[in-house]
């Protein structure tokens, strides 16, 4: 190039010109940043996060929320978070598991900014961790499915076979089996938390195999629920209880996250200077999760059975109490052993009656 300096000069000039200035703003009580891995309109995980944040915003007047959707779990997300901090964010929710390490890097660089990360496990002075007690919460949902199925085959679409997801399937199957020993849960893995075309094909494949209820652990339940509804099957939702609107006829129930209460508490703690990092896991009774309203075809006694199970959970019942065998006959949880919160990520096996390969 004859004169590359020209470009550099141009860029520097442009930089100087634009650095001028600031747009005056009112000082909000708190600026909260949130990054989502997908779109908030997914009737699923991201929607539940957005709903929680909106609830937090409604509870705290003067709170400003800045958000970014479709932020991938790569080095990019660090830049996005840094940008938000430059805009004044003092509390950040990096809402996807894979954002964790990057958020931690940012947290270490900015000890005056606070983070609460869902689904992870690292905790530092300005970095905490929270999630719902999903695994055990799937047990009552399984009861509903076990009672409602007529073909005794239930389809479960899983995004990625991580421990937590397998735990969900296991609790679901344990619940279903507890009311219907013949029931089978068939698992199909799409290898992506959010590949709609695969989810549609997976749903169809499960329906082709005779499943009459579909449920899932993917970011958004929409496609699978719609597939079930269009072929006359029943569905159970996950992540956001709003998804019931997609299946007016076939909806049984679902499990959703209701993060708002917790998020409000965290935001208040940042404003008051009382932020406490922790490894927080809350269930239905503490308000972080909710069982969705039942669909029109669910009989009253099934509803009662489900809600009774929810009660039992609140009183300390843990479905992962031994002895529990996996689908190859090996005892995985021994007699007298109980798997608590800390072990929920350790599943690499499927319980009896589940058709699928865990690894």
């Amino acid at each position, binding site marked *: 190039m004859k004169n590359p300096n020209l470009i550099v000069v141009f860029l520097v000039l442009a930089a100087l010109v634009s650095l001028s200035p600031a747009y005056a703003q009112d000082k909000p009580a708190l600026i909260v940043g949130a990054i989502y891995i*997908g*779109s*908030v*309109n*997914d*009737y699923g995980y991201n*929607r539940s996060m957005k709903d929680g944040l909106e609830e937090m915003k409604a509870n705290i007047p003067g709170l400003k929320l800045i958000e970014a959707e*479709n932020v991938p779990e790569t080095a990019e997300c660090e830049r996005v978070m840094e940008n938000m901090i430059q805009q004044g964010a003092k509390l950040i929710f990096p809402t996807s598991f894979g954002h964790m390490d990057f958020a931690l890097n940012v947290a270490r660089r900015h000890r005056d900014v606070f983070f609460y990360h869902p689904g992870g496990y690292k905790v530092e002075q300005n970095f905490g961790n929270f999630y719902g007690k999903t695994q055990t919460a799937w047990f009552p949902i399984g009861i509903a499915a076990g009672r409602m199925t007529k073909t005794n085959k239930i*389809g479960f679409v899983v995004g990625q*076979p991580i421990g937590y997801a397998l735990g969900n399937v296991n609790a679901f199957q344990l619940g279903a089996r507890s009311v219907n020993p013949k029931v089978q849960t*068939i*698992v*199909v*893995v*799409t*290898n992506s938390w*959010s*590949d*709609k*075309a*695969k*989810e*549609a*094909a*997976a749903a*169809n*494949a*499960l329906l*082709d*195999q*005779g499943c009459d209820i579909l449920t899932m652990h993917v970011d958004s339940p*929409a*496609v699978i629920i*719609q597939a079930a509804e*269009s*072929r006359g099957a029943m569905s159970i939702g996950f992540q956001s209880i709003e998804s019931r*609107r*997609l299946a007016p006829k076939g909806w049984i129930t679902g499990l959703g996250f209701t993060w708002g209460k917790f998020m409000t508490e965290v935001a208040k703690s940042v404003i008051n200077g009382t932020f406490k990092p922790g490894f927080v896991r809350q269930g239905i009774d503490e308000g972080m999760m909710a069982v969705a309203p039942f669909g029109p075809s669910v009989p009253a006694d099934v509803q009662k059975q489900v809600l009774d199970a929810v009660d039992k959970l609140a009183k300390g019942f843990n479905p992962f109490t031994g002895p529990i065998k996996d689908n190859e006959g090996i005892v995985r949880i021994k007699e007298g052993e109980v798997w608590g919160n800390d072990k929920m990520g350790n599943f690499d096996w499927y319980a009896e009656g589940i*058709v*699928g*390969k865990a*690894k």
Partner: protein
Amino acid sequence: MIATLLRGVLAGAILSGTLLLYATLGEVITERAGIVNLGLEGILLIGAAVAFAVASVTGSAYLGVLVAAVAGGIAALIFGYLVVSRKANQLASGLAMMFFGTGVSALVGKSYVGAVIEGLPKIRVPWLSSLPWVRGSTLFNWDILVYLAIPMAALAWWLLFRTRWGLGVRAVGENPIAAFASGRRPQLLQYQALFVGGLFGGVAGAHLSVSLTRTWNEGMTAGRGFIAIALVIFSKWHPLRAIAGALVFGGAEALQLQLQARGTQVSPFLLDMFPYLLTLAVLLAWGGARRSAAPAGLGRTFVGIE
């Protein structure tokens, strides 16, 4: 047991393969005119986003498909301007179109993510769909695009091989100078071929968003445009053979999911690779023989297919 597996694979193959067929048909026509459109992926995305947006706004998925087709055609014309009039390198232009399509589709689709649409209605064939083996599956209970897929392939064949227009297109693809000398206008023919290709591409994308998944999200075509380009070679640039190609690849996709649904003990990732490896294997086995079937004009772009 095998019967259910076969039925599932066939049903899945037809569902997944429909959009592949449309995309492949469009690209066959384009390549017959001597132009490779690597940007097909971008056109699929534009089709998907536009169809979904229009369906959300107007409530009519059919209208969505129509507008998507036109949008695909327009995008193809933009690409055409670069490679036909400006004689730009086809591969680079194609990738640029892919980027363009990725961005435009994201922009268009942004406001409609999460919208719920009715989608293309399913039309049930009265007697066939109640046959014992068929009942309970998606066979013979499809939307209009699936029913039209094979007729469209026949139409493409007829256009290319039984009309004067098609003859002209193929002539341009073989030897643009000779075509020009014989009184045809190569550039016009190429633009027309590209436009038709874009129409098909837009429809293919539309099928994904308003029928198969009834949703939109960024990048949802996941490389199907590139698969279609490979399928063009697989089918020796012939519309009717493209049907086989689309079924095979659609079937491969369906097979891996059906196998999982039956509890086959293979890693889902290995199963996932199967369609792509199958395409590669087929290209490999028949790639050499394909060379002579390619329109000669394509050689100017693909060094090595000559």
